[in-house]
């Protein structure tokens, strides 16, 4: 009986440890990466590539893309981004392309309906972490929360993740 009790207690302790570790794992995971939970994105606004003022978008969501002319991966994943941006526009999202630094994008991307910003406000600059290109971030403009993000080039799998995330705005 005593042995049974010990084993029972051991199992309970192990279950508690496992549950604690699972919770801890997800808490840490939510804080790693460029866009961890707690980041609040304002709707994008600023100045365009042609140095014209761009007012804050009133769209439901924003698909934000950090890209650069000198970034080969940005060219490789362009077809995926185009598909994602078309779906985003159909869902009522604003699609914004930004270079990390002024001059990193010289000419327009040529994607219709896309806003190209060159200068941003401080709250937007705080939320955006321009440490790599490409970065693709989907933001819910109502809450400012990052719904989905991809650090690095898009591929089939990340594109479908992005499309799935976009489906909540339909």
């Amino acid at each position: 009986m005593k042995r049974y009790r010990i084993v029972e207690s051991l199992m309970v302790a192990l279950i508690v440890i496992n549950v604690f570790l699972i919770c801890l794992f997800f808490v840490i995971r939510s804080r790693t990466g460029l866009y961890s939970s707690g980041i609040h994105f304002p709707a994008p606004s600023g100045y365009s590539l042609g140095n014209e003022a761009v007012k804050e978008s009133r769209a439901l969501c924003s698909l934000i893309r950090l890209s650069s002319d000198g970034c080969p991966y940005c060219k490789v994943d362009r077809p995926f981004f185009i598909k994602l941006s078309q779906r985003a526009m159909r869902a009522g999202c604003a699609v914004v392309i930004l270079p990390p630094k002024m001059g990193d994008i010289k000419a327009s991307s040529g994607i219709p309906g896309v806003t190209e910003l060159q200068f941003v406000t401080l709250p937007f600059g705080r939320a955006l972490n321009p440490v790599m290109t490409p970065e693709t971030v989907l933001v819910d403009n109502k809450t400012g929360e990052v719904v989905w993000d991809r650090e690095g080039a898009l591929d089939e799998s990340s594109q479908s993740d992005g499309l799935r995330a976009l489906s909540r705005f339909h």
Partner: protein
Amino acid sequence: MWKAVSYACERTECSGRRRSGWQPLGGYVCEDRRHVAIMNSLFTKLCVCLLMLSAVRLTVLTKQEMQQYRTDRSKYSALPHDSSLHGIDAGGNVITPGVGVDGRLKDGAFLVVFVVHRRDSLRDIEFWNHVSQAASVTRTLPRAQIRYWGVCDSGAACNVLQGRALFTVVGYLDPYQMHIVAQADQRHETLLYGPSTTLKTSVATATDAPREAEQILEGAKEGGA
């Protein structure tokens, strides 16, 4: 015998201590205690082993995630030394601090970049006006050698205050530079860029204007450009 009848045995074999959970309603058939005991013991051991394995695996995963978190924090929280000093001023024009052909700020100037908070914009403007005046009074460096950019935390909302400010009010910066300024603001720091447009130092924002000016001048004096 228990092999032949599988999980059942005769009533007589169950005469020992019974556990109510094992008995079917109204029946005289009970489970073979020896078999159940063996199975129970096996399942218990298996459960304990699996729980231990999962605890070990989860510990490893959590440790890896923690390492990643620490790496990310140290990587992304450090202020980069390079810069991209382009912005939009209160008039809506693109501004740069004035870089010569040699890629250095003209006149060997320094650039102080800080945040003007819209909530306390008047107080901030007054404070930084005092800082720039105090820095010029000490004459450690000629006045023209320190330029000041006050980055508004609400875009164009501070533009109307340009007339009151002795420094350049900037509403927008490029994403890279704006992220650095925002990081510094979160730490209550002011950025000091040297003539080579690299970050010379970040100075803790003081509450006292002469003290802030002193810190900026000290930062400008230390080391090279």
